[in-house]
């Protein structure tokens, strides 16, 4: 029994890491630009499928590097052409536009790569189990955790110690002042959007290795990411990270004790958070209500 529980906690942490990667990207964009990027799951799926297509040419490692970058590049184009004109307007329109984009992404993915699930080739050494007792600790799962920790660490370091990161954080608080101080806010928003989409692409490649490929892979991961942001608190990236891990573990545990509540449990958590701490665990009062 302990092994089953440990297995599910471990699994939950991994799923939570996905949610966190997704949700961090969503959070970045939401905090700076006020746009809920509903197409985030579409970008994730695109990253996954690009990696699938690239692996025969550049190998797994190449794909891990190139696919998220290509996804981010497409993100930059879409931001420039479709999303930029909506900044500062009614949030309704950003939501609707990205909602439509999500439809298009899913459909195009299905059109190009087919509706069936596709197998995703991993290097052999990543698929072996590392421990005979804890069979679930495969090389790939450990590898994933390492990549996620590295990516999240790099993101937080960049936000805290680079000029761009400081500007993003400052812009999150008061974009007008940042603009007045001579920072090109358009470029700042674009780069920030690109970083967010990069995280989605990276999550996509990692998710493909764990869950396999299907056109709806992104749609299934986006709702929990919203929950992660709300539980963690709007405006707090650290909160988003913790929120993602928490709901991952919670659904992992629910899978042991109440299998039919595996998905529902995270919404119950969200309800409780809204009831007892409406701004979320680490959210700041008075921002982005």
């Amino acid at each position, binding site marked *: 029994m302990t092994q089953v529980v440990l297995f599910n906690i471990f699994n939950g942490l991994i799923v939570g890491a996905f949610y966190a990667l997704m949700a961090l990207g969503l959070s970045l964009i*939401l905090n700076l630009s*006020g746009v*809920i990027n*509903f197409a985030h799951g579409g970008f994730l799926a695109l990253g996954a499928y690009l990696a699938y297509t690239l692996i025969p040419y550049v190998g797994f490692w190449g794909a891990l590097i190139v696919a998220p970058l290509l996804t981010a590049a497409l993100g930059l184009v879409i931001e420039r052409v*479709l999303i930029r*004109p*909506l900044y500062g307007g009614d*949030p*309704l*329109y950003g*939501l*609707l*536009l990205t*909602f*439509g*984009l*999500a*439809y*298009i*992404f*899913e*459909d*195009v993915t299905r*059109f190009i790569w087919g509706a069936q699930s596709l197998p995703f080739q991993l290097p052999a050494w990543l698929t072996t189990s590392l421990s005979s007792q804890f069979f679930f600790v495969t090389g790939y799962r450990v590898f994933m955790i390492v990549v996620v920790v590295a990516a999240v660490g790099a993101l937080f370091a960049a936000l805290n110690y680079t000029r761009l990161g400081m500007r993003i954080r400052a812009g999150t608080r008061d974009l007008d002042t940042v603009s007045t101080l001579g920072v090109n806010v358009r470029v700042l928003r674009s780069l920030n959007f690109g970083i967010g989409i990069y995280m989605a692409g990276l999550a996509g490649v990692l998710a493909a290795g764990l869950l396999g490929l299907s056109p709806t892979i992104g749609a299934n991961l986006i*709702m929990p990411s*919203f*929950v992660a*942001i*709300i539980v963690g608190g*709007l405006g707090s990236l650290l909160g988003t990270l913790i929120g993602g891990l928490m709901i991952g573990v919670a659904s992992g545990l629910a899978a042991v004790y109440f299998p*039919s*509540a*595996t*998905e*529902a449990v995270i*919404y*119950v958590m*969200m*309800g409780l958070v*809204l*009831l007892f701490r*409406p701004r979320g665990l680490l959210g700041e009062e008075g921002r*982005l*209500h």
Partner: protein
Amino acid sequence: MNGLRGHRLNVAVGIILLFMPFWMGAIGGYTELASRILVMGLAAMSLNFLLGFTGVLSFGHAAYFGLGAYGAAMAIKYLGAGTMPAIALGMLVATLAAMVIGALIVRRRGVYFAMVTIAFGQVFYFLAFRWNSVTGGDDGLTGWHRAPIDFGVATLDIFGSDKAFYYFALVIFGVCVAAMALLLSSPFGRTLIAIRENERRARFLGVPIEFHIWLSFVVSCLFVSVAGALYALLNNFTDPRALRFDLSGNLVIMAVLGGMRSFWGPLIGAAIFVALQDFVSSRTENWMSVIGLVFVLVVRFFPRGVLGMLRNAAKA
């Protein structure tokens, strides 16, 4: 803005709806499509009570639509309820849910409100999806159908005749729409519009904002659940897709497409959207891209919707 002011428009809409099953065939449609437009129109207009007239961005109305649908379907399947009691039960379930969830989210605004409503909407989707033994799970709830309504003196065979069902739905549509129009022209409705226009000022005037938004949310969900119940009756079937977030998004785009500042706008948007969806999905597998494109085009080029544009053209 007000449903009671533009009398000529009201009469025109009434006449068009009254004869829809007859002219629908002439332009290549069918009676069931007319009923679907009516039902989705009611749903979009109900959503717009909150979205357009209170200024609160709800992106999770599919939940209450679906609760209405499941409530009605389960009442018929498991309780052997008649048509009207089934609709009433669907309304009851959805309204209770809206009262509880509304209380949790009523302090949130803007994007935050949107996100919370989206996320909460999914609870019921997963309930319906997972609770196989009762809801039929992913396959949906089958093995029941709507029954003719017995008025004592006469029977309306809404099961055997598509047209009879259309007119049954039209009566309910009319009652709901009239109720919403009355509410909007009442002091309560005026207060909602005041909140939409300037929440802070309304608060300074002593309006209990949270209570009004909560009540508007509940009213909106109540009417959307009627549409959901009608939808289940129309199809003699319901499945988790009636609860899923894409329906929420579709309802919002219907309202925006028609014009969310006008009373009838969402009905027009629903008519365009439903007809387009029907047309495109019968011709190409890639209908999702077309629908997605509609979202993008509406946002970029027609953010004020059809009625908003007509109104601008009339002014110019």
